[in-house]
């Protein structure tokens, strides 16, 4: 399956892009995706316990199964205002 992943702030800079299309195996959960990204990027690795995933603009539990076409935002601690 193909999903879209959106990165912001620290992660956008760490991955060098704000949006990426990624091919994942069927059955991949949010938790699996976090582990995958942490394996590939040191900055992500150090944030893996504080990031939250949002699918199609709604936060999801890490145990949730991802689906083809999901638009996944990786939300790091916010600092607006």
């Amino acid at each position, binding site marked *: 399956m193909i999903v879209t992943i*959106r990165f*912001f*702030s*620290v992660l*956008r800079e760490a991955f060098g892009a704000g949006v990426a299309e990624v091919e994942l195996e069927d059955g991949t959960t949010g938790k699996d995706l976090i582990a995958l990204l942490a394996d590939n990027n040191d*900055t992500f690795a*150090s*944030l893996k316990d*504080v*990031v939250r995933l*949002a699918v199609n*603009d709604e936060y999801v539990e890490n145990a949730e199964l991802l689906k083809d076409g999901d638009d996944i*935002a990786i*939300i*790091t*601690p*916010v*600092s*607006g*205002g």
Partner: protein
Amino acid sequence: MTTWIDISETALPAEQVHEFLYASQGGGVCVFVGTTRRVTLEEVTEHLWYEAHNTMALKEMEKIAKRASQQWSLLRVVMLHRTGKVSVGEASVIVGAATAHRGPAFEATRFLIDELKKSVQIWKKDVSPDGSSFWVDSGLG
């Protein structure tokens, strides 16, 4: 309750915020503005740079405004956030409420900014005059 919630890359319109809130014909209007502070813990900031997940951030601001309206009797609520470069002395965020009496205006406005800072999907980078920068409270050690 009538709300005005937005994220934009242009300067925040203080005058229009006041007009919008006065139009409630209530008696009390409170407005809070976050501006770029020049000095934080002896470090000088040249500008802040804000980035948002716009669609999520707008929904989150709507939720915060709604929660505020459940706690206080609010006539109008404003929540505006700027993205991109915000120089020293410029406004990055304006929140405010119009109410019949002043107590709830202060309390609701405080709630709006506190909750916005906690949960709205916006991130801030601090850029110093020498060009160095860091993402504020990013979660990195």
